């Protein structure tokens, strides 16, 4: 029996041969397409329009900061954007990843022209990661406070934040000041390479 994922993978690789850098199926049977930054819009157009693909629904967009990935061992560019797409017609999901170019201002192209719903998701990724979406109609902050500085989901942004807000009795108004609490790590991050975890889940 042929795996339906193999045929879809072959189909995607063929349709996206100009735009994709890799089409992979992971151990959980999820298909991922890595699109090249320069040709991503052409790639997304095909993914959306082609009748055999027809990924009409844009489910999610997630920025990822790979700075600390396996303690900095990853060779990718620092910022990636991961799109989750869904085809109602074929009942299939697809994960697409694009790496942002540019060190200071990580940039990818906006897909808000292809899926209108991407507008807010891109604003969110801009707000939380500082990823610039070129061609976005209205790239403003969305989740953080008015006048917020920094991009909180970046790995170098402290968990406590940088400012705290309080009511100043003397000045009779709310004001901001640098945080006074210290960051506390209650459970350290560990990666176990010993044999216990090699088959976790496969036993029993």
């Amino acid at each position, binding site marked *: 029996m042929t795996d339906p994922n193999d045929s879809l993978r072959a189909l995607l690789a063929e349709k996206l041969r100009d735009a994709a850098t890799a089409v992979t199926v992971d151990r959980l049977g999820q298909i991922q397409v890595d699109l090249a930054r320069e040709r991503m819009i052409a790639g997304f157009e095909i993914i959306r329009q082609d009748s055999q693909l027809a990924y009409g629904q844009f489910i999610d967009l*997630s920025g990822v900061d790979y700075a600390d990935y396996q303690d900095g061992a990853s060779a990718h560019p620092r910022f990636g954007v991961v799109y989750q797409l869904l085809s109602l017609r074929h009942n299939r999901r697809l994960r697409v990843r694009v790496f942002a170019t540019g060190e200071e201002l990580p940039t990818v192209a906006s897909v808000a022209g292809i899926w209108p719903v991407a507008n807010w998701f891109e604003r969110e990724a801009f707000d939380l990661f500082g990823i610039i979406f070129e061609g976005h109609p209205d790239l403003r902050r969305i989740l953080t406070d008015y006048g917020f500085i920094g991009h909180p989901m970046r790995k170098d942004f402290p*968990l406590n934040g940088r400012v705290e807000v309080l009511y100043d009795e003397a000045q009779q108004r709310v004001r901001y000041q640098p945080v006074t609490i210290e960051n506390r790590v209650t459970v350290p991050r560990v990666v176990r390479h010993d044999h216990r975890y090699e088959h976790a889940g496969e036993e029993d």
Partner: protein
Amino acid sequence: MAEIRNYTMNFGPQHPSAHGVLRLVMEMDGEVIQRVDPHIGLLHRGTEKLAESKPFNHSIGYMDRLDYVSMMCNEHAYVMAIEKLLGVEVPIRAQYIRVMFDEITRILNHLMWLGAHGLDIGAMTVFLYCFREREDLMDCYEAVSGTRMHATYYRPGGVYRDLPTAMPKYETSKWHNEKEVARLNAHREGSLLDFIEAFTDRFPGCVDDYETLLTENRIWKQRTVGIGVVSPERAEALGFTGPMLRGSGVEWDLRRKQPYEVYDELDFQIPVGVNGDCYDRYLVRVEEMRQANAIVRQCIRWLRDNPGPVMADDHKVTPPSREEMKDDMEALIHHFKLFTEGYSVPEGEVYAAVEAPKGEFGAYLVSDGANKPYRLKLRAPGFAHLAALDEMSRGHMLSDMVAIIGTQDIVFGEIDR
């Protein structure tokens, strides 16, 4: 003569019908909405950032607090993502319990939505009726988890404990005499399953009551028919899921199309709207309550006949029983390691989604092999729905804005995360 211009109006963030902390900046032409700019984020708590700083299991409780009227469904998506990465099999009884509580949650959510939506556009009575039924379902939450809302009941590998064999009972006090307490305890003599079954017996009658109040109600129809119409094509492009998508006539339900847990073994119908207006979405959700009730009944029948484990027997991921832990050294070590360090999840990334009452609630989880998530992105259905508020409300009157917010079933816990 004075020049007539559009003017800008602020709505919220603390308006009773803004469903929490929604702030809208509206451009109005007289009483007609020209443009809406929702300002969100007033309830942003950084759930995703917090999850990165804690072992996997510690964040389950945060999931309840996202969409705080459909608590267990949020846990479900998160827990399912972890299970997929770990490759843990969930025992069949736990799957039935999860499905049963997902559907109880769906009823809870839709009751809250119906009550609040009714209250927003002038039907006060429904709210009181809905909360009467919600109270019983909250008691079910309390019986299994000890809390009425933020349950933390689903765990990777199953559910935290089996269904209790006795329901907590009311006691007489200076506010409730014996006769009253006897009435309150009438359905609480047996197990939790008996209590839920008694609820499912009377619930269809309750839904009939709500429908009597609303479905043919002239005022209700005037406020909802033809308001916020979305075509099926637009609904897809705008990223609608759940009842918002089905109300527009697209037959799409993850429980049927991409079944998880035991949904493929259960018998239920998927209601679909025709016109894509607020009234159709109301009909869809009301019918969903009836279907959820039917699913709960099927689960009760199965659960009565099939005892068994509710947690996977893999102590790297799930805690050993208290009894074992007290007299077995290895179980004690497992217990200690699990509750301090947690477990390491193999490297990989996964997207897991459930059909939450509001739509597709998904969790995108990236693990780099550590005991904490590397990145957790939560896909909240309300976020995409609220993004479409501008398009849905253009050309409508100001008072219809409230109906559209109501029909979107907005909860800020999940939108702001």
